[in-house]
C-alpha cells in the first residue's frame, strides 16, 4: 500500500483583525511547499481555532494577529490546546507583535514568532524543520 503522509497546517486568525493579507501569503507559500493548508478566515475565537485544529488533525498551527490582543488570545489558545490533549501540535505565530512580548509568548510553548517582512522561505524552512513526530 502506498503511504502518502502530508503535513497539515492550520492558518488561523484570532480576534478582531480587519484584514488577512499576511495570513493568506503564508498559507499560499506553505501550500506551494506541498503542504495541506486549512484556512479559516477572519475573526476566530480561541475555541473555534482549537476545535478546528482538532477536527482537521493538523500537525502545525500558524496564528496571525495584527490587533495587539496577542497577550490575551495566545495564552487562551495554548491553554485550550492542552485541555484538549493537542500537545503534539507545533504552534508558531506572526503579525504585529512587539519585540518585548516575544519571550513571554515563547514561554507558552509558541515555537517561533515572525515579524513583518519575514521571507516566506524562512517560514517554510522553519515548519519543515519543526514538524512534530507522531507515534
Amino acid at each position, binding site marked *: *500500500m*502506498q*503511504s*502518502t*503522509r*502530508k503535513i*497539515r497546517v492550520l492558518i488561523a486568525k484570532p480576534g478582531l483583525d480587519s484584514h488577512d493579507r499576511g495570513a493568506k501569503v503564508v*498559507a*499560499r507559500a*506553505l*501550500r*506551494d*511547499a*506541498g*503542504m*495541506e*493548508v*486549512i*484556512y*479559516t*478566515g477572519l*475573526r*476566530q*475565537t480561541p*475555541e*473555534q481555532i482549537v*476545535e*478546528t485544529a*482538532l*477536527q*482537521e*488533525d493538523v500537525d502545525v498551527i500558524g496564528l496571525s494577529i495584527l490587533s495587539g490582543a496577542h497577550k490575551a488570545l495566545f495564552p487562551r489558545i495554548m491553554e485550550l490546546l492542552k485541555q*484538549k*490533549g493537542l500537545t503534539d501540535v507545533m504552534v508558531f505565530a506572526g503579525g504585529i507583535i512587539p519585540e518585548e512580548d516575544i519571550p513571554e509568548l515563547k514561554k507558552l510553548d509558541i515555537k517561533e514568532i515572525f515579524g513583518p517582512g519575514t521571507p516566506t522561505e524562512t517560514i517554510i524552512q522553519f515548519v519543515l524543520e519543526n514538524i512534530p513526530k507522531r*507515534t
Partner: protein
Amino acid sequence: MTKIEEIAKGVLAGDRRSIARAITIIENNTAEAQKLISLIYPHTGKAHIIGLTGPGGSGKSTLIEKIVREYRRRGKTVGVVAVDPTSPFTGGAFLGDRIRMQELSTDEGVFIRSMATRNYLGGIAKATKDAVKILDAAGKDIVIVETVGAGQSEVEIIKVAQTIVVIHAPGLGDEIQAIKAGLMEIADIFVINKADRENADKAVMDIQSILQLNNKEKTWKTPILKTIALTGEGVPQLIEKLEEHRQFLKKEIEHKKSLLRAEAELIEAIKEKAATSIIEELRKEGKFEELLHQILEKEIDPASAAEKLLRGKFKKAVSNA
C-alpha cells in the same frame, strides 16, 4: 489494546479526537487503514449520505452551512467532508471550505473535515468513502460530502453518496458545460442557488427542459429547487426533499427485498408441486415398485434408484441434482 483498536473504539464512542485521527490514518493510506476500516465497518450503514457538488462560486459551502443548521434544528447530528483539489505541481492544497462554516466548529453535534484530493490510486472516491464510514460509525445521522464540480470527481461522488444534490447558480454561464460534464445524469435533486439574482427562473427552465428528457424512464423525478444560501431561504424545502429521497431509497430497497422474498416463496412452491406431480407420474410405472423391493434387498441405493426412474424423462433435473 493496539493503537488502532483504541482509535476504533474512540470512533464508535463518538470521540472527536479519535475521529480526526482515524481520518488521518485512512488519508495517509497506511497498512493500519484497512485494519481500522474492518473494525468500524460493522457499525456503518445508519447515516444518510448526501453528496453535494457543483461549480466553483455556486455557493456550496455557504449552502452546506445552512443545511447543517437546519438539520441541527431538527435534532440531527451531522458530519461534513469537504473535498478540495490538490495541486498536481506541488502536491499542496488550500482548503478553505471552513471559512463559510466557522460557527459550526464549536457545535458538538457537528464534525467537519477538509480533505485534499491528493493523488489517490483509484480516485478520490475511496478515501472519501472511508472518511464517510468513520463519521457514519461515529454516529452522525447525516454525512455530507462536498466536491467541486469540475473534472472527474463530481461523477465519482455517486460511488460515495446515496443522494446527490447538484447545485448551480444563475450567471455562472456554464449551464451547457454542466450538461456536458454529466452532472445532469447524477442529480437526485437540483438546486439553483442565489435565486434572488435575475435569470434564476431562466436557469430553472433551462435545467427543467433537459431534466424532462432524463426523467422519462425514472421512478424518481429529479426536482429543481431554488435557494438563497446567504439567507437560508429554501433550505427547509431542500431538507424535505432530501428526506423524501431517503424514504424513496428505503422503499426501493424494501421493494428489492420483497422481490427476493417472493422469489424464494415461488421456488419453494414450484419444488413442492413439481415433486408431487413427478412422483405421481413415476408411481404409475411398474419400475417404481420393482425398485422399492431392490432397495429393501440392498441391491440398489435410493439415490441410484431415483436416477434410474428419472433417466430419460428429466435429463436436466437429474444432471443438476
